[in-house]
C-alpha cells in the first residue's frame, strides 16, 4: 500500500541524513588533526553523496548512501616551528576542513531530517484516518 511505502521512503531518507551527520561530525572532530611527525599528512575531509535506488524487495524507489569520498582540495599551511609535525621551514599542514562549510551542511541535514519526519507524521495520520473508518 502506497501510504506504507511513504513511511519506508521517509525512513530511508532519515537514515541517509543521519549518515551525513556522522561524516560531518567526523570532519568537525578532526578539524585540527595534524600529522604526528614531520612529512605526514593531516586528516583529509570526507565527503558523502546520495543515490536514488530501486529497493527490489519493496518495489519502490528509495534513497541510499552513494559514495563516501575524500575532499582533494589542498591542506592549510600554518607557520608553527614548535609543532611536532612542523617541516624544516617550520610549517605545519592542517586539515582541509572548513568548520563554516560543515556547519552549513549540518543545518541542511537537520532540515532534511525534519522534512522526512513531517512525511512520517502526515502519512501516519492518513493511515489512522483510514483505520478510523472501521469504527463507523
Amino acid at each position, binding site marked *: 500500500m502506497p501510504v506504507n511505502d511513504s513511511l519506508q*521512503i*521517509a525512513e530511508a531518507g532519515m537514515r541517509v541524513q543521519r549518515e551525513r551527520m556522522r561524516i560531518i561530525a567526523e570532519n568537525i572532530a578532526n578539524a585540527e588533526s595534524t600529522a604526528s611527525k614531520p612529512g605526514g599528512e593531516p586528516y583529509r575531509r570526507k565527503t558523502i553523496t546520495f543515490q536514488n535506488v530501486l529497493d527490489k524487495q519493496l518495489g519502490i524507489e528509495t534513497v541510499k548512501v552513494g559514495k563516501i569520498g575524500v575532499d582533494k582540495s589542498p591542506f592549510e599551511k600554518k607557520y608553527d616551528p614548535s609543532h611536532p609535525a612542523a617541516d624544516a621551514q617550520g610549517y605545519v599542514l592542517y586539515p582541509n576542513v572548513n568548520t563554516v562549510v560543515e556547519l552549513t551542511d549540518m543545518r541542511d541535514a537537520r532540515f532534511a531530517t525534519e*522534512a522526512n519526519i513531517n512525511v512520517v507524521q502526515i502519512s501516519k495520520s492518513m493511515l489512522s484516518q483510514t483505520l478510523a473508518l472501521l469504527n463507523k
Partner: protein
Amino acid sequence: MDYSSITLFGLMKSKLAYLSQRQAVIAQNIANASTPGYKTRDTVEPDFKKMMQDSSKGSAQKLQLAVTSGNHIAGIGSANQVARTMQVKNTGDTAPNGNNVVIEEEMAKMSMNQADYQKVIGMYGKMITMFKTAIGSASGA
C-alpha cells in the same frame, strides 16, 4: 458485498488510491532532497471529473492503468499504480549538482494531499452512516 460496485464508493476508492500514491511520490522527493541529479517527480491526476460524468450516465468506469504504448494491455487496475508518475523538468530552482527538489514546495503539496485525503475519508464515513440510516441501525454501533 463489494462496496466499490456502488459508484460513489468506487470513485472514492480510486481517489484514495491516487492520493496515497501521490503521498509516496512526495515522500520520495523529500527523501531525495540532497541526491545529486535527482529530478522532482509528480503524479498525473486521473480525470475524476470525467469519471464522475461517465458514472452518472450509468456507464461506471473503473480507474485504469495508464497505457503508453499500443502494445500494452490495459490492466484491470492495481491499487499500487493508479496514476502515471512523471519528472518535473523545471522547478526554477536547480542546485549545481542537478537536483531540483524544493522542500518547501513538497511540504505544501503534502499538506494539500493530506487535506484531500481527509476530505475523501470524511465522505466515505458519511456514506457508511447514510447506508446505516437506510438499513435502520443509525446509532453507529
